């Protein structure tokens, strides 16, 4: 068995895994990718992330790093000699990057999920709440090319995988995210010009099929 210095325990469809894949690609780090099964987690995953038992987990020199945003920062700090830097060098901009990555963590995942797990009035409320969140990001982008300043970085990496979900949200929620948030749509296009992003993101249509399957199983 090949002894790999960098192993990523992941699930291709995962937005959190995608963050790590993007970061590794940006830095040109070679690694061994291992696809996990959520209903049959490997002993290695359970050993490396006993607290959460979740992917992604980066295993570097046999030691685990867990939680996607924390892994991305670890990658930036460990391979700091490789450009580009994922976090700004200025402490204030760094704090802004962390703030927005934290904002995405707090608001996007649960907010989006609510839209495809609810119906009727509850779904309408979830849709409005989610659009309000996206409008905040729209405001933060303003005239800037990226979420924090002039370069693609930590905050963008935290958010860009969720663009895969827009197709699903538009279909199930009867929304038009790109029309309501044109700056966000332009930012998505801009990020998609990066090979690290296009090579790391799962297929939007496949994700939609997965959600439909989930809904069917729950009898929605």
């Amino acid at each position: 068995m090949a002894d790999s210095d960098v192993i990523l325990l992941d699930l291709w469809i995962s937005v959190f895994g995608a963050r790590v894949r993007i970061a590794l690609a940006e830095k040109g780090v070679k690694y061994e990718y291992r696809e996990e099964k959520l209903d049959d987690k490997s002993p290695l995953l359970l050993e490396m992330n006993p607290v959460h038992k979740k992917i992604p987990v980066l295993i570097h020199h046999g030691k685990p790093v867990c939680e996607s945003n924390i892994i991305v920062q670890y990658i930036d700090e460990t391979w700091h000699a490789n450009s580009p830097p994922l976090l700004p060098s200025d402490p204030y901009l760094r704090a802004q990057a962390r703030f927005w990555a934290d904002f995405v963590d707090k608001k996007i995942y649960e907010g989006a999920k609510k839209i495809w797990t609810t119906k009727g009035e509850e779904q309408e409320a979830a849709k409005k709440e989610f659009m309000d969140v996206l409008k905040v990001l729209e405001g933060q982008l303003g005239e800037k090319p990226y979420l924090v300043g002039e370069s693609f970085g930590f905050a963008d990496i935290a958010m860009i995988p969720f663009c895969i979900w827009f197709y699903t949200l538009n279909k199930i929620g009867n929304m038009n995210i790109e029309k309501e948030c044109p700056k966000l749509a332009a930012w998505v296009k801009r990020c998609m010009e990066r090979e690290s992003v296009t090579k790391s993101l799962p297929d939007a249509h496949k994700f939609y099929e997965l959600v439909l399957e989930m809904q069917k199983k729950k009898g929605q």
Partner: protein
Amino acid sequence: MADEVKLYGVPGSPYVSRVTTALKLKGINYELVVEDLSNKSADLLKYNPVHKKIPVLVHNGKPISESLVIVEYIDDVWKGVPVLPQDAYEKAQARFWAKFIDDKCMPAIFKTIGSHGQEQVVAEAHEQLQFLENELNVKGKKFFGGDNINLVDIAATFIAYWLGAAEEALGIKVLSKDKFPKITEWGGNYINCQVVKEGLPPRDALVGFFKKRFGNA
């Protein structure tokens, strides 16, 4: 040019305490701007339009929000006593535990307070606290940061001080000494640190607050 450091907050907030501890560790002079949370100032809303919450640190006119983001910012700007380890791996571990405290421990603990110590709710909080107990056991040191406090200790401030006051106010027990001897010992040591002690609200005021807010089920 002298640094201007303002901290928007309230003295009773554990999240504000995280920031004051970090500022005091670095020996930074700051002004505490006390907010009335039922009537937030125009400044606060201007400095934190996204969440409209305290604490907010304003450094030379530039605002930073979210307590753990602020603490990392303080560590980045001012050298001296480190809040985070230098080593990238150790840093990642510290961030992991700080996030665990915020994402898992705090919500579980708040639920025990809100439910007045309902058995099932307390059991769920114990599940989360057990991870912290194990971590202290494995580390075998006074603090999560080793011989000195670090980001994790600072993140766990609520557990060291606020929780005890809530327990007393409501006559409940969440952090029992026999179940969590390491955390109990850690808590005592943590609040004894000068930089922590100076930023704590008086205990009877805190007990009074919990009684008023959550008392009389």
